[in-house]
């Protein structure tokens, strides 16, 4: 691959007798839109947690722009231009919509340790721009807990973009959405990624969504990558069909 922005080498993680990640090596090219698919329990979220510092791998390494980031705590990765969202929507329900974005912006701008100035007016315009970018209309001063599920997903995306990431991991960005909303949601992510030359790695259950937008697809099964390639190729793969249709290894 010409210019991989990111790669893992031989990632292993065991939980008791279960190999949640088993020799996972893959690379992602700059500005690529990569899907990771696999049945429930395939290890997608574990893989994300290993890469983004929430879990420490038993073996293997993670490289971001050539630097080894294995075991780097998540808060440092955010400052280095890597960002992520969570499978179960994760927003700050005790803050307002705009405060959710502002706190991420304050963090990105290194202002977290300012104690003597009010936070309310800081970086407000930038926060409003991000909300507009993800199409979150409505009153930004409302409590984030009042948002609908779809709007929470949008807010989470706006927050994840606050550090102007070069690499973004989205764990099931369309989870919990109605079928007709999913395609629209992922196309918006794709549009934003293309505009910003942002590299995106996302997990997704809806195959229609995956085949519509992904440049390449990695198929994870029982902690292993069993197939990888452009959508047309992966769709034809017998291994993939077996995993999804027959449930046999």
């Amino acid at each position, binding site marked *: 691959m010409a210019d991989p922005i990111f790669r893992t080498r031989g990632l292993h993680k065991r939980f008791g007798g279960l190999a949640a990640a088993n020799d996972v090596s893959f690379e992602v090219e700059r500005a690529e839109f990569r899907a990771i698919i696999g049945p429930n329990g395939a290890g997608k979220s574990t893989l994300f947690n290993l890469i*983004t*510092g*929430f879990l420490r791998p038993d073996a293997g390494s993670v490289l971001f722009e050539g630097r080894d980031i294995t075991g780097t*705590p*998540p*808060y*440092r990765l*955010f*400052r280095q231009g890597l*960002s*992520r*969202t*969570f499978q179960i929507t*994760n*927003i*700050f*329900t*005790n*803050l307002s919509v705009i*405060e959710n974005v*502002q*706190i*991420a912006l*304050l*963090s*990105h701008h290194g*202002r*977290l*340790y*300012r*104690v*003597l*100035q*009010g*936070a*309310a007016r*800081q970086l407000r315009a930038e926060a409003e721009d991000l909300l507009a970018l993800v199409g979150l209309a409505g009153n930004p001063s409302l409590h984030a807990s009042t948002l609908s599920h779809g709007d929470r997903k949008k807010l989470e995306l706006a*927050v*994840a973009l*606050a*550090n102007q990431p070069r690499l973004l991991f989205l764990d099931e960005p369309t989870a919990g959405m109605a079928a007709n909303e999913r395609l629209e949601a992922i196309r918006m992510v794709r549009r934003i990624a293309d505009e910003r030359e942002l590299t995106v790695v996302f997990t997704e259950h809806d195959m229609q969504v995956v085949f519509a937008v992904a440049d390449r697809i990695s198929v994870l099964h029982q902690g292993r990558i069993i197939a990888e390639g452009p959508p047309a190729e992966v769709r034809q793969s017998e291994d993939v069909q077996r995993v999804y249709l027959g449930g046999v290894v």
Partner: protein
Amino acid sequence: MGSVRTAGLSVRLALIIVAASALLIPAFAGPFWVFVAIEVVVFALYAVTFNLLFGFGGMLPFGHAAFFGLGAYAVAVLVKKAAWHPLLALGAAPFACAVAAAFVAVFCVRLTGIYLGMLSFAFQMLLYTVIFKWYSLTGGDDGLSGLAVPGLLGRPEALYYLSLALVAVSLAFLWRLVHSPFGKGLQAAKSNPHKSAAIGINVALHRGIAFVIAGAFAGLAGALFALANQSVFPGWLNWTASAVPIVMTVLGGVHSFIGPVIGSAVYVVLQTVLTGYTEYWALILGALVIGIVMLMPEGIMGYFRG
């Protein structure tokens, strides 16, 4: 926005009324009620430092009295054993408590829930035992007395105004802190530690800094209380003492900066009045707390804000 501005106005009006009445108390009240007023003011600060950790930081330290007590004993020991001027000792106490809080924080901030609570409780009991047993330094069970501030400043009114001024400045700082980027980060870490880490917040460090600040100001409250009483007692940092700021905070409202201040006033005045009638004052207080928790779970402030 209009409603926000009106709310701002009424808050300002309420602040002016409270400030005016606070300033006038010594003109109308005798020394006994002036002392009660000092207690209200000092415990207001103490309860707010507890709520910085609990309401804003999501930590429930069962041993917060350690820092209140340490502040009081720092003053007492420096005055009685090192012959410092009481006001100099008052200035030093918060720093001693900040150092102690930093030490406790190293162990506590990575824990959550009951584990953090119990570990902070353990440090408090450790400190209590040291103070209780180290008779030569602390006076043990008897405590230390004779901490009178010399000169005019030792008069109850003067001590009251000193406490009022220091607590007002401290509360203004803490109010700023809660609304600062740091304070928002603390609230984010309370709401969702994982998400906080994912957006670049070093959750342990953030909590640790809050812990140190809360410890330092709780120490200032304890130091002021020592000067007002002219003595210190080991009971101030016994485990039952840690319940006091918790009760005040629940009474006044957890999700409000000013809630614990209201809670302190209600608690102290009620206790003072009730002890005049019955030794079972705690029974009535207990019933009040149950009533508040059942009927106004957001405390007095939460109730009035609707």
